[in-house]
């Protein structure tokens, strides 16, 4: 019994406790005592949802033994495409159909980007790191170009409200949480279930653990990989939708460096860059740990460099703990 408790603590439960501990720490330190309030926590959840959603896709990629550096660029591409379609409405509020069209266009582009990553990696047999390093720049360039290197200012629409806080807001409180967080939760549950119950999910993990063995067992390795990068593109795009809702404009420079935060979330969540290990729940907790840390530093009035430094330190600690865990496992 003692053994099982310990194994639990070494896994996602332990990460959750670390998250709680960091929240409590800031709750005790931040002056005014507002850190632990629901409206503040809701805000942190909202701000973390962009990274969380992209981290679901990145978890799949890392589970399959790959990596996706283009997530930030795909996110920006989606933001700009949505804004560009929305701006067609001129000064009028965009019609519901137009906003749906904008969503479809944005997500279509993100899926296309992911598919291109997958096809380049599988058909040319290139290393994922190199391919996505290249497409990161290319997608960012295309984003910039399609926005004519300036911000696009579309009119407001219902899309802009999906990131708004709902607690205490008249007529919206029944939602409990903003649509953005529901979207993240539902995505996480579905992908989590796919990984656990579907053949596709088990094959993703098998490819990441030992690609040769998977091929030998009749797993369609190339197809699995393409599907994984396609989904990573889709989730980067969904994160882009949230980002659009949050900033409200088509800013081609948005989301720079997000790919590293997303990877950091997966690694803090127990994902192994050599593949086969990681969990959706863990990655979400990882994204939240980063989010809480950022919010905490801001509310303490600490300088930005401290946030950056702490994020790095957390990655390092997570990697060290992971190493210790594996050494114990093999002994």
């Amino acid at each position, binding site marked *: 019994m003692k053994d099982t408790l310990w194994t639990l603590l070494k896994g996602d439960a332990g990460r959750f406790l670390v998250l709680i501990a960091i929240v409590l720490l800031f709750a005790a330190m931040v002056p005014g005592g507002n850190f632990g309030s629901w409206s503040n926590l809701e805000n942190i959840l909202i701000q973390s949802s962009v990274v969380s959603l992209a981290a679901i896709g990145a978890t799949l990629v890392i589970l399959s033994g790959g990596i996706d550096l283009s997530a930030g660029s795909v996110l920006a591409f989606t933001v700009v495409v949505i804004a560009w379609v929305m701006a067609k409405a001129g000064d009028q509020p965009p019609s519901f159909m137009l906003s749906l069209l904008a969503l479809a266009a944005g997500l279509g582009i993100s899926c296309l980007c992911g598919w291109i990553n997958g096809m380049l990696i599988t058909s040319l047999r290139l290393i994922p790191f190199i391919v996505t390093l290249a497409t990161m720049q290319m997608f960012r360039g295309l984003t910039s170009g399609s926005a004519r290197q300036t911000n696009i200012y579309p009119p407001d629409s219902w899309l802009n409200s999906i990131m708004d806080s709902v607690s205490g807001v008249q007529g919206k409180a029944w939602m409990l949480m903003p649509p953005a967080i529901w979207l993240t939760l539902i995505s996480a549950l579905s992908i989590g279930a796919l990984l656990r119950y*579907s*053949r596709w999910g*088990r094959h993703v993990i*098998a490819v990441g653990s030992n690609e040769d063995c998977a091929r030998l067992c009749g*797993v369609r390795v190339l197809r699995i990989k393409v599907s994984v990068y396609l989904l990573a593109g889709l989730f980067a795009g969904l994160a882009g939708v949230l980002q659009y809702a949050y900033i409200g404009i088509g800013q081609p420079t948005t989301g720079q460096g997000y790919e590293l935060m997303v990877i950091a979330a997966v690694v803090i969540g127990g994902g192994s860059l050599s593949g086969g290990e990681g969990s959706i729940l863990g990655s979400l907790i990882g994204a939240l740990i980063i989010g809480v840390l950022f919010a905490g530093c801001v509310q303490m009035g600490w300088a930005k460099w401290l946030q950056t430094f702490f994020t790095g330190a957390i990655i390092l600690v997570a990697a060290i703990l992971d190493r210790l865990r594996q050494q114990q496992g093999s002994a």
Partner: protein
Amino acid sequence: MSVRLQMSGIQKRFGATRALADVTLQVQEGEVHALVGENGAGKSTLMKVLSGAHRPDEGRMELEGQLYQPASPLAARQAGIAMLYQEGSLLPHLSLEENLFLGQEECRYGFRRQQIMRRRSLDALERVGLSELDPNMSAAKLSPAQAQLVELARAFVSGCRLLVLDEPTSSLSRRDVEKLFSLIRSWRQEGMSIIYISHFLEEIESLADQVTVLCDGRSVETRPLAEWTRQDIIRCMVGRDVSQLYPDLAPPQEDCVLEWSSGEEHLQLRRGEILGISGLIGSGRSEFLEALFGLRQGPEAELGIQGHAGYASPRQRWQNGMGFLSEDRKERGLALQLSISDNLWLSSLPRWSSPKRRRSEAEIQVQRLKIRCPSAELKVSGLSGGNQQKVALGRLLQHGCDLLLLDEPTRGIDVGAKSDIYHQLRDLAAGAGGQPPCAILLVSSYLPELLGLCHRIAVMREGQLGEAQPREQWSEHSLLEASLS
């Protein structure tokens, strides 16, 4: 002549396997000493002990009368022992000269002494008959034969007095072999001692002064070449009793599961039959199985598997009811970081399944195969070699195959696990537990296993598959002879 190397009572264990039981070897100055033995007799381990890669558990080594205890391959090289490995060990991004001096650079105050090294590398290249090469050229540009000679030149740079050659001719053309042999003879003249390992008895007959036979980790006998006959050598190499490890076989049925033919060669496998393929490592046995399974393009061949003809991918092969067990358990056979259950299910997952169902069915296989583990959720990396191999075999059982291609299914596992696997294979062939009988194609380097377990055995030699004969018509002796001659 004086004794250059004396090894006595050398023993080495790896976990439960005893790689070297008791080896005694004496090599004189200016002598080519041939070392022969079956695959797995301990030749490679012995040479790794000599070259400092492994430390012996027991025994004593003396080099020119001095106690010799190398702590590392570098120490062995400094003592004057150089080894040429089967696989090349040149670094393609460095020049010849940098390769020659790697790890033993001539330096003063941390700076390379260019002139001295240039002179010595030219000298070493000349001694291996490569004086036309520029020491500055990139090692990537060498032909395989040249690369091997450059590796030999490395031995001369380090002032080697005892050279170990492990199957040096396996990647050489006939002409390059002649060249190598004349070099070896000239070095012997200069007083160099050479340990020569080869499967090819004719090479040994044309080169060696002394021949030592290894069998099951023991040095059986050492005699001057003139006192050996080929028959003696083979008998010495085999020399062990066939134990009662092997279950009785049921006769095979009539219907054909596999039909294969390519030119003169052909193979037919009936339901319930176990067919063994013997041959040396590198004779093309594994490649044959992989081509059957669609993992590589084989030579033009007619292939029929239960009505399915022609080339297919591994995925289609599984659907045809063919299962494959790789000889490389760790790299290709298993996903070591995944659980037993995940590994068992890998080829046969239904579209949707709950972890609970996967686990409970995996537990059934675990019991059937007698895999010793607390739970089917355990990572495969935590199991012993024998239990890992049972998991790999269990995948074929879980899938329910009609035709099993098994490449070295008992390599490196203990006798208990071997016996479990033999009985499992017999049951599969006989069709126990309501399953239809399977056909099994078994590649093995372990001759008693082939003779004990197979209905028929065919020998593969240099990529050519010989006629399959009933096992009663083979002996270890004749199998070895067929794969050597």
